[in-house]
């Protein structure tokens, strides 16, 4: 699809139509089902909806505490605003990992349901992404007082947040669709996934500032590649910029946006293509 430079517009239109008819439309028609999956999923994850939202706040707070202890006290690094810089990156990351590792087993764990009734199976990974999003929004409530306590530079740039969330949403949905299918073929995917996600987090500027990489040789040359190939490099930087530093998002976010669209379309395509086969593999 990307290859060759020139994209055949007719083919792209045809492809988008298939995507819409086989994936988006059935999901739109079954909104009530997704809503019900969402509610039961939250209940199942936390046992209780009220307590669940509390955990969604406490969990990243505790993680922030651990990292802050490690970086600020043990290594004597970070700045005065380190906790909120970290927290504004940890929250979206938690959403991402929750969605990805949940999606990888979303089809396998619902095998019996899939084998008794025909419904849009894409609703299962999609639900995981949405549950993660709900948790993320709860986390923002915890973040707000912290931003005030640590004197974040809050200004008009915060209005970029819905855009960033949207970029991350389509990126996550695309990857979740892909992993939901792979998770059926390879049941042990979660073992490697945990490792890959951890590595990915450390490769992204969550615990550190992207400028702290400038001590390396050829920084200028490589940082561009880094920002282009790692969507979470730009996402983390942008979240920190708009929430804490009061600056507009990293300009490479537009490239991340394009990559997210491609990942979303590719993931959807992959899901549609394999949806029928995986039912027989369950």
């Amino acid at each position, binding site marked *: 699809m990307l290859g060759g430079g020139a994209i055949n517009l007719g083919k792209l239109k045809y492809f988008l139509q298939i995507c819409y008819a086989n994936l988006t439309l059935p999901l739109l028609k*079954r909104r*009530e*089902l997704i809503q*019900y999956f969402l509610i*039961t999923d939250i*209940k*199942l994850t936390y046992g209780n909806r009220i307590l669940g939202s509390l955990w969604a706040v406490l969990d990243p707070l505790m993680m922030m505490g651990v990292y802050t202890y490690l970086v600020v006290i043990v290594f004597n690094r970070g700045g005065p605003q380190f906790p909120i810089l970290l927290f504004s990156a940890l929250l979206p990351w938690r959403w991402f990992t929750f969605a990805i590792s949940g999606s990888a087993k979303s089809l396998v764990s619902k095998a*019996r*349901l*899939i*084998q*008794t*009734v*025909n*419904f849009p199976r894409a609703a299962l990974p999609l639900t995981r992404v949405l549950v993660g999003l709900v948790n993320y929004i709860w986390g923002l409530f915890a973040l707000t007082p912290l931003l005030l306590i640590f004197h974040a530079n809050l200004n008009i740039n915060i209005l970029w947040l819905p855009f960033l969330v949207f970029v991350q949403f389509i990126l996550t949905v695309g990857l979740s669709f892909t992993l939901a299918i792979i998770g059926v*073929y*390879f*049941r*042990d*995917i979660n*073992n*490697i996934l945990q490792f890959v996600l951890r590595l990915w987090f450390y490769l992204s500027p969550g615990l550190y500032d992207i400028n702290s990489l400038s001590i390396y040789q050829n920084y200028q040359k490589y940082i561009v590649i880094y920002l282009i190939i790692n969507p979470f490099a730009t996402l983390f930087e942008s979240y920190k910029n708009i929430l804490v530093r009061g600056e507009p998002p990293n300009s490479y976010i537009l490239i991340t946006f394009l990559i997210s669209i491609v990942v979303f379309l590719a993931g959807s395509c992959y899901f549609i293509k394999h949806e*029928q*086969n995986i*039912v*027989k*593999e369950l």
Partner: protein
Amino acid sequence: MRVIIEARGLGVKFPLKQRAKLLKSFFIKTKTAASPQNHMRWFWALKNIEFTIHQGEVIGIIGRNGSGKTTLLRTIAGVYLPDEGHLLVRGTLSPLLSINAGFQRELSGFENIYLQGILLGFSKKEIDMVIDDIIQFAELEKFIYLPIKAYSSGMMARLGFSIAVHLKRDILLIDEILGVGDSKFRRKSQQKLAELIQNSRTTVLISSHNFEFLKKQATRILWLEQGELKLFGDPEFVIQNYNKNN
């Protein structure tokens, strides 16, 4: 009578090759030579099935284990797509009723009723109207707020059956479930089924080994053997031939 299900040359295949179920084996397999002939072998669970079913019919499906009964029901339910031929299904479907109904084990019986109903495309309001009847018929008043994992298999079967007969659909699919539950519930469910059958708008497909029930209730019987349609017709006649063969 209106044709409600029609199969023409219907075939469904499954991959037979040993799939790499673990990422680990995916890497190791490249070194230990995997048998190349095995690569693209398919097992046809159903082949060249032809039949027409009319509205209001009660079709019994018989055959030995592994003859394709469940695959046929699942294909009609829309779980599998035909790999060959055509299958036409007109009307709304109930979930395929089987012993391992698609319940969520962690959720309560009450929540599972809603889940099943919404999966079938009913609105919450429509489910509200029948939920008491469902619980009462399943005789689960005391247990309905317990998670399904605490249920016995008989209780699950009762709940599944109750949901399927109360949330009415044009086509009811039942997979070897008549034999579950205690004898009292068995009688009750067969009675309810007979009631549904009398109300001749519902089309019923039952796979069962209970020949007495099928002889009484089925309008026709479909006999599957190794994925092929052996006989399809009058219940007495098909069962007689089946018994001669087995």
